């Protein structure tokens, strides 16, 4: 639908101020269509704020964001945004009292009228779209279960299924694996990346773990105190760069490149 080198995001000098706290400080970056980008950095670095700005949920105090060449603010006003961006927040945002099916099909509400939404909620009608999305995220056996009866990993997948039904061009995912054990975290990120690539979507996720980010994403953006500290292909992200983002003291000049200390972290291909 878009030329491979087209721009998904063009973020220009965006700042977000929450009272005295500056969550984002003059962030400028671009993201190509179909790219896979991980935002890494410690807690409070501004990853969530960044994703919320990109999703159009949070309006920047300063600066502007363009999405596929159009102003994000205008897209939100005209109601075009749901077809373009979908956000999967960190905190559970499913409705636990409803079934997986109902939660997944809620992704289509932007395209449905009220009558159709009500029929789909109240009558046991089959929904091929929701079923297909649920199958793709690997929990079709849970289709008619209540979300409250699902495990944390299954709920995560249900939220992803809802995003697939929404069918946006950009997927924004905030800390998708923070509550999963390492094996399941790896599996879910693999799934996320595969689904995104299969449909040619742009994927931007925030992650605590730089190892997982390097393994599953092509590009890493390091955030600290609301600023971009580095922005590099994942094969070029060294431990020294990561240390600048994660170290507990204030950032200093780049340290000497340390020998590979983490044996298991093979760079992504």
């Amino acid at each position, binding site marked *: 639908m878009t030329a491979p080198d087209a721009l998904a995001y063009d973020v220009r000098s965006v700042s977000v101020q929450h009272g005295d706290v500056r969550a984002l400080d003059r962030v400028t970056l671009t993201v190509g269509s179909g790219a896979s980008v991980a935002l890494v950095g410690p807690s409070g670095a501004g990853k969530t704020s960044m994703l919320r700005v990109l999703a159009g*949920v949070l309006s920047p105090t300063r600066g502007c964001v363009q999405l596929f060449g159009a102003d994000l603010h205008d897209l939100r006003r005209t109601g075009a945004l749901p077809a373009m961006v979908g956000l999967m*927040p960190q905190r559970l945002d499913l409705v636990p*009292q409803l079934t997986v099916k109902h939660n997944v099909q809620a*992704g289509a509400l932007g395209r449905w009228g*009220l009558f159709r*939404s009500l029929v789909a909620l109240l009558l046991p009608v089959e929904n091929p779209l929701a079923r297909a999305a649920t199958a793709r995220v690997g929990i079709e056996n849970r289709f008619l279960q209540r979300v409250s009866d699902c495990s944390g990993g299954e709920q995560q997948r249900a939220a992803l299924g809802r995003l697939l039904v929404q069918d946006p061009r950009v997927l924004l995912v905030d800390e998708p694996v923070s509550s999963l054990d390492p094996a399941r975290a790896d599996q879910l990120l693999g799934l996320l990346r595969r689904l995104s690539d299969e449909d040619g979507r742009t994927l931007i996720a925030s992650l605590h773990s730089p190892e997982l980010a390097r393994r599953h994403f092509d590009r890493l953006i390091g955030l600290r105190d609301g600023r971009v500290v580095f922005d590099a292909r994942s094969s070029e992200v060294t431990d020294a760069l990561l240390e600048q983002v994660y170290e507990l003291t204030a950032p200093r000049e780049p340290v000497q490149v340390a020998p590979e200390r983490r044996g298991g972290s093979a760079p992504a291909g």
Partner: protein
Amino acid sequence: MTRAVEHRLVGVRPRPRGRTALSVILFGAVALAILRLDHPTGLLHQGGGQALARIARSVLSPDLSPAFLAIVAAAAMLTIAYAVTGMTVALLIAIPGAIIVSGALIDDRAVRWTVSTGARGLFGALRAIHELVWALLFLTILGLTPLAGVLAIGIPYGATLARVLGEHLQNVPREPLEALVTAGASRWQQLVYVRVPIASANMFAYVAYRFECAVRAAAVLSFIGLGGIGYRLTLSLHDLRFDRAWTLIGALVVTIAAIDVASGRVRRRLTA
């Protein structure tokens, strides 16, 4: 850190001196007031002691004759019918009322606040008037008709339900709502896909509790002559038939307990 600051931080105030002495004085004052108040006639009126003894004795021998049980059953059914129709009127008011109070369908923040606060005030005023007062009011307007009883329950209960259910719809976690907003859902869709399912268990519990209250209210309202358990109870007490009074009270207790059990079952199914 000084003691005062410390206490403020942990939310505990230092225990004032002489508190026990104050308690003793207050307790003595209350006891004295009660004794003085009842001085002329005593706690019970003349013959009250005897009546009490009779009432207590007849607990053990309630009137369970088939003829009277048939009357009790009919009275209980009538009381439940008043409660059901009253609650129906109440829900007809409360469902749109709760949506208005919650402000869930209004985009503009200022308009939402105005409408929500205005509706809250209106319902607050309606429910401030007790159902017995509504009953007397409608009795004057409509005469001794069933409609007077139904409206007397329906209006104040509808107002109370609208306020409380509206708050239930309002106090829903932000995250699921936001998720649907980013998916492009309208406010109506957010209402039916997020607010109602999340609030449903609490809303149902409150409606069931109010239904119990409505049964009690219907029993009381029937004292004014509308028929039902309360009416039968006045007749029995006038005749000094305490054995029958106990049967009627038992019927009321059984009715309320049955509603409680049934609503508990449904509530457990709704609770996630």
